[in-house]
């Protein structure tokens, strides 16, 4: 084997080894794909009780200064102005042509401070992009990822499990809102967000506090869950994975994310997206349910209709919660609910699927108050 670049480790790396996790290279990080129970058991723990994820590999970038919020408004597709302090939005950064740079969360802290949380796999690219876009704004952009650890506690039992060790009243933290407070005496950003389709919280702490927090949550009964179960959970909820459903070659409109795009304001990529909306979409990301036995659709499998190649699968799997084999994929926008396609799961093997509604499974995740 030739010499390899060393993988990055989160502050919780030794904990995963201690728990005998199977580790994989995820975007240059040595991360747990599963622990000893396995992906399906970990998935079940999150759906039915409480699971615990190390998401410290995610990137955190601070935007501070007089024009912090104006800059964020310009940078992302979603409306920042309408948000309250203490609110979070899920949004996207686009290139001028409408292609997606990344999906991210924006934490609106105060009128001179926003925290951006971006995908681990895009951190370097995003940081360069954000700095470039900030050139004409009176703001300071800093990559603080190395200072933070992030732990996600997800599952219907999450709030109950930690309410007695939190210095904030958890039931007052609405979905997509956050508070600064203490959990087990540890200072944290406590946010009711997640990537699983279940109720739960994400904690941002100083990296030295990661291990004590992780161990306390395990002690309270949270079960460790790796990236394998994480991908299955988000897929069932039809959340995007950068590199699969969203890329620089897809727009938020095509991906079904128009709810995260505010075309009434100026932002990078706005004119391309407005134009695309005017002209109408030629393709859309749709949910598909496989209707005959024969295999499991996977990323990049081709999709056919009447022997013509019409699209491709972004993610596919057997959904334990839905009890079905399902996929997300891009197909022409003319296809409607119930229409049939074929997915090529193996050379010369195509299986029938039909267009269905999202999500594949609706869990305990709270919804945003209107």
């Amino acid at each position, binding site marked *: 084997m030739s010499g390899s670049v060393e993988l990055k480790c989160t502050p919780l790396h030794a904990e995963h080894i201690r728990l005998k996790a*199977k580790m994989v290279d995820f975007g240059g990080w040595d991360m747990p794909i*599963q622990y000893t129970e396995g992906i399906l058991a970990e998935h079940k723990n999150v759906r039915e009780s409480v699971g615990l994820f190390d998401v410290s590999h995610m990137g955190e970038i601070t935007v501070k200064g007089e024009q912090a919020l104006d800059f964020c408004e310009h940078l992302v597709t979603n409306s920042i102005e309408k948000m309250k302090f203490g609110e979070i939005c899920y949004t996207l950064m686009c290139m001028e042509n409408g292609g997606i740079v990344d999906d991210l969360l924006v934490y609106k802290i105060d009128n001179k401070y926003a925290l951006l949380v971006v995908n681990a796999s895009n951190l370097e690219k995003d940081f360069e992009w954000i700095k470039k876009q900030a050139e004409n704004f009176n703001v300071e952009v800093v990559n603080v990822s190395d200072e933070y650890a992030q732990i996600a506690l997800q599952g219907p039992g999450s709030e109950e499990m930690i309410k007695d060790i939190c210095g904030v009243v958890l039931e007052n933290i609405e979905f997509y809102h956050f508070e600064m407070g203490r959990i087990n005496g540890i200072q944290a950003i406590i946010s009711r967000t997640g990537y699983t389709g279940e109720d739960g919280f994400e904690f941002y702490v100083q990296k030295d506090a990661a291990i004590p927090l992780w161990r306390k949550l395990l002690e309270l009964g949270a079960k460790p869950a790796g990236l394998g179960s994480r991908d299955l959970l988000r897929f069932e909820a039809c959340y995007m994975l950068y590199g699969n459903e969203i890329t620089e070659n897809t727009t938020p409109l095509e991906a079904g994310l128009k709810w995260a795009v505010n075309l009434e304001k100026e932002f990078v990529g706005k004119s391309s997206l407005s134009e695309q909306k005017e002209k109408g979409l030629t393709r859309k990301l749709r949910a598909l349910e496989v209707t005959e036995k024969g*295999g*499991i659709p996977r990323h990049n499998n081709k999709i056919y209709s009447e022997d013509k190649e019409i699209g491709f699968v972004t993610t596919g799997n057997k959904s334990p919660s839905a009890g079905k084999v399902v996929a997300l994929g891009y197909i022409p926008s003319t296809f409607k609910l119930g229409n049939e396609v074929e997915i090529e799961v*193996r050379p010369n093997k195509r299986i029938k699927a039909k267009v269905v509604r999202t999500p594949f499974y609706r869990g305990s995740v709270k919804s945003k108050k209107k």
Partner: protein
Amino acid sequence: MKKYTKSHEWVELDGTVAIIGITDHAQEKLGDIVYVDLPEEGAEISKGDTLCSVESVKAASDVFSPVSGKVEKTNEALEDAPETINSSAEADGWIVRIEVSDTAELDTLLSEEEYKKVCEEE
């Protein structure tokens, strides 16, 4: 007495019928198995052919036939319970029974000892 392959299949002779599955080592590496694509009964198979596909949550893996012959029976219980391969890869998780055309083909396969070494060297 079981024989093994470098590609992590096991085979056990029952008269002239070879019972075939994937090894416990293989299921452990694959993780939770969610689908098995069983071959057709009556299919003619040559040694080394792709017999079927075993799909885990993360990936699909081909199973190669250690023998030549005709598929006599497949383990249909795996259609509804593919996870049997995880819990009992070398017993209840058998995948196919093949009527063997030449039992001498098994002679070149690995013994349990030899297979264990292969796993250790991986």
